[in-house]
């Protein structure tokens, strides 16, 4: 591996800005780190360059651990967004800077400089000053300068940010060509998905300091695993669908979908599906559709953008409209793009009534679809829905919070879908038990005004709950900037006996989290009684949260009663998978 990052963490004032990131970049690979501003991508790049120290983890370049090596000894070339050329030096002096530092002979320096200027197509500019060059030319000089000392790794921090569209594209081509010609391992940071698609062999998407997904551009676009990646890489309509053994159902209509591999429990469950704007088909009547019918709609807005036509259509069927995520509340708008031939076949105007079909629907493998605020009264449920933590989670997950009045003395009239959220307190344990018995898979117990967590503990009582708990934790942690800590607890016993098995379980858990869920987590082993140890760890700091995996409702309801009743308490997300579901067959796509 050319660049290997292992659980790299960087905190600013206790807030992790880079959170347990592990990446392997292969020899000669062009890796693009993509993310919105503030996602920690630039900090990570600076950490690779050695300009920013890290708090945890290891960085290796070409098999050599450089975590504690100074920037100047790492042998990397770095290109900055604002060029960072030395303005008092000529182009020649800029490019030769690294060679001068290394006391290379003047003749050799000249030869290398000519070579580099040829590479970036700036021959004859040697004696110019940076101020006499255009932005694009300056960035070429910066690239040449960064390559002068033949670095093992080239790092580019938003190198096209300050350039206009035409120049940007030209420079993009140059950089790709240079990278191919030299075969140098390259990491580029950008917030522009188009740029990422155009340049990358591999894209890594970051958000809130976490690396969410890594993959080839086409795979990430077609089969994103997270809603963030789905919506950040191109436009996406997110919708809640129901999945069962029979397939996917959106509202009342069954639709066919690709890419479903959600761990399935036999009973019908709610899933999040991605519908790309270009996969939406429009027709005047249901018979005109060549794909699966979804709903009736009216055209709200049409924007002509050259090659494509962008439309926003409003879904008219109420049950379907309610299943649409994103957008503002009550705005059941679906984004559609059509090519010119499609547009010619069916010219539309705003206000026209159409039907929409889905050519391809991608189901996200996330176990957290939506939230359902459950309380004994309508008012309490509404109040619960406005708890800061629940609000921020649902906003970040681009999902909705439904309301449900529950009566513990009666059976549930309609099946529960999504994560049930309830108020913490003395009654919480009973409510949890009732919800789990009535089909809820996840229950979030919320203390009043709980802040967004900075550390999430993960624990499960039986190994059977491991897979589901990890999946839920991974999904949760993509949306909060917190550290994940798996807490293994072994009962007290004679020293030295029976520690090996829990240790192995700990490491297994970590590697499973890493490989199956792309969740980087710390592991800790505690000795003692489970509830006491959990309480002790949760009390040890502020803004902590627990994800608790269980397989037995009766046992859990009694065992964790005190934990759920604690004041002021912590948010606890209970993940329940009844043991028999392990045998349920997985549904093929």
């Amino acid at each position, binding site marked *: 591996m050319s660049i290997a990052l292992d659980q790299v963490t960087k905190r600013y004032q206790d807030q992790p800005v880079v959170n347990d990131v592990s990446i392997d970049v292969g020899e000669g690979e062009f890796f693009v780190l993509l993310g919105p501003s503030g996602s920690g991508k630039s900090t990570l790049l600076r950490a690779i360059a050695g300009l920013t120290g890290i708090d945890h983890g290891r960085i290796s370049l070409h098999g050599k651990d450089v975590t504690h090596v100074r*920037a100047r000894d790492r042998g990397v070339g770095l290109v*900055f967004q604002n060029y*960072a050329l030395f*303005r008092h030096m000529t182009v020649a002096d800029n490019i030769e800077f690294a060679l001068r*530092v290394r006391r290379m002979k003047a003749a050799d320096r000249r030869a290398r400089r000519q070579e580099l200027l040829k590479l970036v197509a700036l021959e004859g500019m040697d004696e110019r000053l940076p101020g006499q060059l255009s932005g694009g030319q300056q960035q070429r000089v910066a690239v040449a*300068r960064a390559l002068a000392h033949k670095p093992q790794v080239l790092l580019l921090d938003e190198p096209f940010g300050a350039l206009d569209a035409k120049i940007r594209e030209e420079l993009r081509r140059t950089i790709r060509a240079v990278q191919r010609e030299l075969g140098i391992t390259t990491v580029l940071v950008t917030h522009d998905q188009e740029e990422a698609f155009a340049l990358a062999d591999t894209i890594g998407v970051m958000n809130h300091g976490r690396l969410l997904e890594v993959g080839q551009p086409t795979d990430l676009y077609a089969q994103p695993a997270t809603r963030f990646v789905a919506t950040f890489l191109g436009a996406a309509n997110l919708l809640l669908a129901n999945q069962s053994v029979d397939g996917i159902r959106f509202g009342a209509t069954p639709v066919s979908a690709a890419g479903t591999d959600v761990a399935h429990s036999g009973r019908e469950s709610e899933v999040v599906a991605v519908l790309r704007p270009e996969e939406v088909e429009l027709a005047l009547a249901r018979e005109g559709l060549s794909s699966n019918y979804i709903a009736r709609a009216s055209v709200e807005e049409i924007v002509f953008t050259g090659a494509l036509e962008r439309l926003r259509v409003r879904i008219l069927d109420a049950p379907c409209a309610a299943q649409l995520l994103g957008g503002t509340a009550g705005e059941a708008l679906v984004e559609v793009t059509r090519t010119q031939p499609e547009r010619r076949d069916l010219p539309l105007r705003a206000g026209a009534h159409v039907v929409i079909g889905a050519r391809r629907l991608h189901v996200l493998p996330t176990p957290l679809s939506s939230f359902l605020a459950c309380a004994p009264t309508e008012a309490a449920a509404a109040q619960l829905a406005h708890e800061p933590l629940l609000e921020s989670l649902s906003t970040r997950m681009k999902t909705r919070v439904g309301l449900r009045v529950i009566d513990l003395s009666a059976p549930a009239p309609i099946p529960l879908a999504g994560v049930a959220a309830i108020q913490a307190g003395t009654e919480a344990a009973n409510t949890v038990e009732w919800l789990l018995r009535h089909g809820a898979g996840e229950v979030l117990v919320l203390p009043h005004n709980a802040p967004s967590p900075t550390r999430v503990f993960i624990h499960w009582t039986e190994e059977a709950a491991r897979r589901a708990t990890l999946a839920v934790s991974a999904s949760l942690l993509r949306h909060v900037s917190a550290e994940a800590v798996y807490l293994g607890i072994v009962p007290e016993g004679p020293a030295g006996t029976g520690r090996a098995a829990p240790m192995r379980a700990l490491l297994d858990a970590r590697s499973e989290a890493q490989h199956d869920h792309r969740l980087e987590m710390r592991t800790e082993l505690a000795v003692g009684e489970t509830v006491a140890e959990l309480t002790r760890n949760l009390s040890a700091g502020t803004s902590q949260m627990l994800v608790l995996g269980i397989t037995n409702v009766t046992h859990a309801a009694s065992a964790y009663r005190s934990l759920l009743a604690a004041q002021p308490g912590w948010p606890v997300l209970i993940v329940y998978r009844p043991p028999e579901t392990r045998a349920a067959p997985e549904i093929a796509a």
Partner: protein
Amino acid sequence: MKNARQREPSVIPGFGITLGFTSFFLCAIVLIPLAALVLKAAGMDWERFVAVITSPRALASYRLSFGASLLAAGMNMVFGFAIAWTLVRYEFPGRKIIDAIIDMPFALPTAVSGIALTTVFAANGWIGQYLEPMGIKVAYTWIGITVALTLIGMPFVVRTVQPALQEVQRDLEDAAETLGAGRFYVFRRIIVPTVLPALLTGFTLAFARAVGEYGSVIFIAGNMPMKTEITPLLIVIRLEEFDYAGAAALGCVMLAISFVMLLAINLLQVWGRKRMMVSR
């Protein structure tokens, strides 16, 4: 051909008024008094003029005035840079207070700073009593004069270098570091060249201020002819003797030397700026 030089309408009108006001002000408070000075000196005949300005006492005072001023400005360049660096680059408790204290010499009546320095550096003063046994006499020597001139010139350097340092992009240092440069190399080849114009401006201002300084120096100088007598003081002495022409002659010499030195520094800066940034 139509009017080729059509003036672009400016957002702020009144170029004529402002230029008129500028020239009037410059004349009234700078040029006319200076011309009067030269005229007064011209009232003497040439031999007397030469005799006055080349008298051993006058020559000694020039040496002291310009020598101490240059030295003080030079010291300010070094320490002012260090202070500006500290204030710009580090975040520490009390930074705001120190930042405010920098301007104190601007606000303080110069006589007050002169008296204060004398008290501190006199043979029995707070600092003077420790320097005395080491054989270092500060008060009533050229060292004391330099100290006073350094004090009053310091804010000029700090205040001009501060914004320039703020503008030195961290990226430049980071870039140099990834290219393999050590800290001192970065300082010498990147930071100093970048802030040099500002540093020179600060030096010029501090120097100009020091040359003209009177109030703070006379208290700490001891004012011994040939030894610790600065030119401004000599001018005052001439005035007290009602030798207005002699005072004017000395004034002219100061004016000439100052003008030449400031011009030289300015030219140096223009040259430097041309090299540094052709367009910005």
